[in-house]
């Protein structure tokens, strides 16, 4: 995109942002469609019996292809596409910003959200997350934001988290999603939302006999860094908790901001994971602790395993995990280097169509493939809640499971979502189905073969095409026939996987 065009977009963005919120969604929709989210006139279709490698990359390193993404990626080559995605700041995202930037609460500094009502806060951060996943061109960043949001899970409904999570999302998760692992963990360790969620703000030593609150320290070692089998002891948890005493949140003036209270800090010497944090470290104890935990070999292995599980397979191939762990160690936890290793690996290329999409990914990939126009209102969010994956709603610190079994009970709601989406029966969501079908099929749109290629990324198998052909016979002539054909593809098992 040339700079003149970018300038125009920016100007239009300002105009849109300046309009009163009511009534401007339609304008934003039309501006974004006019300038960036238009469906190309022709879409090339994968024609192999195996999932197209570019389609595969877009299904894992992105929330599925938007119409035209496949052609763009093929033209660039996958390595260059990955490099571009690893430098999200180089990708112009104005079109997405038009939809997602306008929520006030997500821009607030820590602790300045208390004036808002909870439903407003919940709605804005949820819509923001969904809109970014749907429309951002920085797709790998969004996928990693989702990954770290699970890894450093915070439930909006606990304590004051709902007031503090917007800043955590922006300053911890989004800032460090493609950065250095240690800096991500360090930022999270004293993030107000985390200090509330895992009781860090209660962890103090007032009197000589006071015992620390171990909640955060335990999850730091068990979930965030070493992993449950990472080789730490209960003493390590206790000593880590001692190192973290004294971090507090203000309650009156500047409520919700962090400070360190030396008088509540246990300033003695600590021994964590075989290393010493000398006495008198005060507020720097946390830096030393995070350093020790992140440098532990188990951490490299734990993070490598989780990333490979997310990007490659539920049963992570051991050889790839080991290579990624080695890269973690040699690059001091450079997240970009880890992703590069995974996404260019043979194991990644071979693992096509094996992962069961979680509800969030299912819904986003449906809407992206359909080039849906939405502002992510509550009616859409309800589908996520019904399928048990509302953003920031997971109760316990381990984050939404990255496995198949817990999500198998959601098929009925996925099928209903598919039929409602394709036939434009989702409230507040518009799908340009005819236009899309023409781009896919030209003069003979809505052929099952083409639909399978477009949505699944490979030719339909004989049994799939026969099943759909039988369905066509039972349904020909009905005015909803075309939409339902698309819905069947979106409801098929092949589209539940990626």
């Amino acid at each position, binding site marked *: 995109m040339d700079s003149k065009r970018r300038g125009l977009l920016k100007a239009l963005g300002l105009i849109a942002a300046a309009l009163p919120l009511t009534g401007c969604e339609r304008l934003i929709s039309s501006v974004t469609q006019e300038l960036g989210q238009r469906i190309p006139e022709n879409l090339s279709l994968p024609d192999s019996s195996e999932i197209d490698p570019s389609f595969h990359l877009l299904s894992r390193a992105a929330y599925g292809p938007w119409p035209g993404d496949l052609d763009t990626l093929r033209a660039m080559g996958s390595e260059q596409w990955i490099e571009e995605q690893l430098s999200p700041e180089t990708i112009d995202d104005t079109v997405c910003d038009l939809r997602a930037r306008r929520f006030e609460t997500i821009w607030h500094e820590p602790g300045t959200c208390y004036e808002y009502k909870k439903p407003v806060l919940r709605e804005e951060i949820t819509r923001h997350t969904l809109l970014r996943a749907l429309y951002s061109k920085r797709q790998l960043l969004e996928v990693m934001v989702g990954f770290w949001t699970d890894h450093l899970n915070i*439930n909006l409904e*606990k304590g004051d988290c709902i007031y503090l999570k917007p800043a955590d999302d922006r300053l911890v998760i989004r800032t460090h999603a493609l950065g250095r692992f240690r800096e991500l963990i360090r930022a999270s360790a004293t993030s107000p939302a985390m200090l509330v969620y895992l009781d860090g703000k209660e962890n103090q030593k007032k009197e000589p006999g006071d015992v620390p609150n171990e909640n955060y320290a335990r999850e730091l070692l068990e979930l965030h860094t070493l992993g449950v089998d990472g080789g730490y002891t209960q003493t390590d948890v206790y000593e880590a908790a001692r190192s973290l005493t004294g971090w507090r949140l203000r309650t009156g003036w500047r409520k919700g901001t962090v400070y360190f209270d030396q008088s509540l800090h246990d300033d003695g010497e600590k021994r964590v994971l075989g290393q010493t944090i000398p006495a008198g470290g005060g507020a720097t104890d946390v830096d030393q602790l995070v350093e020790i935990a992140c440098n532990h070999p188990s951490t490299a292995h734990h993070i490598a395993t989780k990333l490979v599980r997310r990007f490659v397979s539920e049963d992570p191939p051991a050889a790839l995990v080991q290579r990624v762990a080695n890269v973690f160690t040699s690059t001091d936890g450079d997240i970009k280097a880890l992703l590069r290793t995974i996404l260019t690996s043979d194991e990644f290329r071979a693992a096509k169509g094996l992962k069961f999409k979680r509800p969030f990914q299912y819904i986003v990939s449906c809407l992206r493939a359909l080039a849906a126009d939405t502002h992510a209102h509550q009616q859409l969010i309800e589908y996520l809640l*019904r399928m048990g994956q509302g953003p920031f709603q997971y109760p316990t610190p381990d984050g939404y499971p990255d496995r198949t079994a817990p999500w198998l*009970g959601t098929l009925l709601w996925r*099928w209903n979502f598919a*039929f409602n989406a394709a*036939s434009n029966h989702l409230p507040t969501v518009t799908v340009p189905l005819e236009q899309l079908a023409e781009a896919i099929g030209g003069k003979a749109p809505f052929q099952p073969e083409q639909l399978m290629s477009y949505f699944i990324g490979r030719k339909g198998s004989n049994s799939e095409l026969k099943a759909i052909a039988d369905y066509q016979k039972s349904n020909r002539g009905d005015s909803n026939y075309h939409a339902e054909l698309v819905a069947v593809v979106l409801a*098929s*098992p092949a589209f539940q996987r990626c």
Partner: protein
Amino acid sequence: MGNTSRRSFVRKLLLAPETVLPPAGDRTLVCIFLRGAADTLNMVIPYGDDEYYRLRPTIAIPPPANGTTGLRLDDFYAFHPNLAPLLPAFNEGRLGIVQAVGTDNPSGSHFEAQDQMEHGESYGHTIGGGWLGRYLRTRAADMTPLSAVAIGPTIPESLRGAPTASAIESIEEVQIKTPSGNASGVASVLSALYAAEGEMVGQAGKATLHLLRRVETLRGAVYTPENGAVYLDDDFSQGLKEIARLAKARVGLEVACLDLGGWDTHFFQGSTSGLQADLIRQLADGLAAFDKDMGAQRDRVVTLIMTEFGRRTYENSSLGTDHGRGFALFALGGLVKGGKVHGHWPGLAEESSSQTDSLNPVGPSGLKVLIDYRSVLAEVLTKFLGHRDVNQVFPNFHPEPVGVVW
């Protein structure tokens, strides 16, 4: 549940009867929330305590006698006359009462106290998710679309964090809705597509389609309650009817939630008749129909009826009652130790409600709380649903035995 897994369940049952959970949906927990803080002192009447009549000169329910009076339960307690439909269930041992249940919430806020209870928390110690949501997460691998159902427009806080939860008005919503209405065509194409699919997802697809066929049969047939049960036309009774229908159809229903609102009786609460009496009648009619309808399958269902807090022990100047503390919780079902009011009577005297402890911090006065509500919930989870690790649902809470479930 497929044949294989049911077979393997049966095998496990034979080999190790004590370590196996019942298959999901074989037992159903129904949670009824009386929103607005129900005055249970006028539902389960402590007629043996003279203080009750002194504190409530206008609205008290007269002690058991002839005419419109309390209905005798034992030498101390009586039911509100409008609970008459539930008297057989009490006398036959299926309806139990737990007296003086409550939370440690001192705020007197409906919203806060409801949230706290539905989240399964102690005051100021939020955990994340609802208590039923956390429980269902432990059974995530066994969930079906109908494992957790709330009858109504929204999913309640108690189900927050559940792996799947459906808010439905009726069973009619459990179907694939296609614009053309060609549901059978859709079912057959999905059936063909999922039949060709690998193990896990294929099985889940088949199980879901099987479930839909089952529900469709139910939908097609007019539901006839059994044993002459009659559900009235109000939302509450009709909601219970849907729950009975789902529980009997064995579609995997593990948890069902239903609300009955309107209990915030600050003004002109009434006594044997009036505002609250009408609600009590509605509650009793619905539950009695449900109990009757479940008939031989009563052992599969426990229904808990709770509220966020009780009301003041004394009536106010507008002949109502203000926000209080402890309440009487009702439990109904074949495996409930019924016919009994469990727990101690804390008394109504001023000194008994003014003493504070961990369950009774400073806050609105009312019936003193003697039993943490989570002790009752934990007992139902462990004894009725076979859940083993209460700490997963109520972290850092040590339940006391209540004895309301066999």
